[in-house]
């Protein structure tokens, strides 16, 4: 490895005592597990004893391979799925189901095809603000349709829109209910690269402007680097776990097309790629080899740029990274 991992002091990363809220902590996933009955008896454990804190205003990405249970984590947080053990605390309260405070942007956009764009967004607005008069609901919905750049398409039906536009409507719908948390399940994975790029820009702009707390699932490393403040690395399933939380050290005002010029970009990217390519598979061996790792207090790391390499540094560096 060509990077030095700087371990963030444990105090900062340690989750608080169960049920004791920290001022800025919005979400605390506490020891959740999900198991499915295996065909022919027994159980498959998707993940076990998973802990994850999310601060207010933070953009968190979970990356990992398919089947590691990252979508299940998001669904549990959304209230669409229930954990077999453990709890999720939001705003100091244990969640018991879906809530308007946690909006979901679905992978397959999930628009209602019999409604227009305006109808889809207004449906959500009306659900949030039941007492609002019709005109106010529509104005509010129009504002968010404009925000995602779909002005003029209000009266179109989802079938008349391109994939990127549909996902924009999905984003407008989620934002229009002004949720405390935005949950996104691979929202851009079905889009072409160009559309994906512009939508990432939009989402980043909106989230920065509104200090939105976001949890996003992705398997796209560059997407995670561009958008996330914290990147959660999940190992391969079954029995997946959160191996590390990587702090994004790139400046907050980063632009997508300038990412690769930023100091620290390559070490961050290499660290994530290394994880996805090999460590997501071999992390179990690292544990077996005696790596100190506690599910409740997952290490938070900051991959830092390797200093100018000089030949005499090399032996020391390789020793350090081993």
């Amino acid at each position: 490895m060509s990077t030095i991992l700087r371990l963030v002091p444990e105090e900062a990363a340690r989750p608080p005592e169960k049920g004791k809220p920290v001022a800025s902590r919005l979400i605390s996933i506490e020891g959740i597990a999900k198991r499915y009955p295996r065909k022919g008896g027994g159980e498959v454990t998707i993940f076990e004893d998973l802990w994850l804190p999310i601060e207010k205003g933070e953009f968190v990405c979970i990356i990992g391979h398919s089947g590691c249970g990252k979508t299940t984590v998001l669904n549990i947080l959304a209230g669409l799925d229930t954990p077999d053990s453990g709890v999720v605390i939001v705003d100091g309260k244990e969640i018991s189901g879906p809530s308007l405070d946690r909006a979901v942007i679905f992978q397959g956009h999930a628009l209602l095809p019999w409604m227009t764009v305006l109808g889809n967004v207004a449906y959500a607005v009306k659900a949030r603000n039941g007492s609002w008069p019709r005109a106010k609901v529509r104005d509010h919905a129009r504002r968010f349709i404009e925000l995602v750049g779909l002005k003029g398409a209000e009266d179109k039906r989802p079938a008349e829109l391109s994939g990127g536009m549909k996902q924009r409507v999905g984003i407008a719908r989620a934002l229009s209910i002004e949720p405390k948390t935005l949950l996104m399940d691979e929202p851009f994975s079905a889009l072409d690269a160009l559309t994906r790029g512009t939508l990432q820009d939009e989402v980043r702009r909106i989230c920065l402007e509104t200090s939105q707390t976001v949890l996003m699932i992705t398997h796209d490393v560059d997407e995670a680097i561009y958008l996330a403040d914290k990147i959660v690395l999940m190992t391969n399933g079954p029995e997946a776990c959160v191996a590390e939380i990587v702090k994004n050290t790139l400046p907050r005002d980063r632009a997508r097309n300038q990412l690769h010029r930023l100091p620290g970009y390559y070490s961050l990217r290499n660290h994530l790629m290394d994880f996805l390519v090999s460590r997501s598979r071999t992390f179990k061996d690292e544990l077996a080899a005696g790596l100190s790792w506690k599910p409740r207090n997952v290490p938070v790391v900051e991959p830092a740029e390797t200093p100018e390499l000089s030949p005499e540094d090399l032996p020391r560096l390789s020793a350090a990274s081993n």
Partner: protein
Amino acid sequence: MEFTDRLRALLLSILVLAGFLCTWHFATRPTGGSAALDPEYAALMGAQVTEGASAMPGPLGVGQQIWEHVSNPFYDAGPNDKGIGVQLGYSIARVLLGYGFAVLVAIPLGFLIGMSPLVSRALDPFIQILKPVSPLAWMPLALYTIKDSDISAIFVIFICSVWPMLVNTAFGVANVRREWLNVARTLEIPAWKKALTIILPAAAPTILTGMRISIGIAWLVIVAAEMLVGGTGIGYFVWNEWNNLSIVNVIAAILFIGLVGMFLDQILAFATKLVTFPE
């Protein structure tokens, strides 16, 4: 391109019709001559043997009869002599009544079955056994318990229309896309509102398809039911004309039954189109 294709299809349709009418005309044409017949037999059988005419009317005779029906469809000259419009009116009224009750029962019940796996499993054996029963098999039971032939006919229509609507509604409701239901869940939509604003529009095309199948079956069954209960209606008319040996009226009635059936079907096809959404 599309226009010429349609024109070709139309020409072919006309050709088929013309071929059919010609064959029919020549097959039923009087052959003339009866010289070799026993005169007593000839006197007994009348025109059929003396002129070689078929008991089967030709297209011209049927056309004339249809014209008579169309030009005066709504007369009522006693129980056995009513205009074809009146007879069709009775049949349509019975179908709409029985079908209307079936809609009121099948759609809410189908919703319940579709939404609750428990109810679905509990009612499934009954539906499976009752669905394949010919609706006319219910007729004696209906006549015995209801003691009114008119209501019995309506009941038979009800019982035959109920099944396709019930099964389709349950299927449509049970198969609403999970992601749409998840949208409702994350928006905390109350159950009754979810049923009306998500499940109903999502299942509407399937429900309407069931309703379309039902109206077709109801129109098939009403003819048979009216042959049994008698009195009024197009089914009774057909049977009465058969007893009168008026094949020409039977053929005319077949044409009218077909036209009305097509009309009913097209109404529901149009309604289905209205609720179908492109994805």
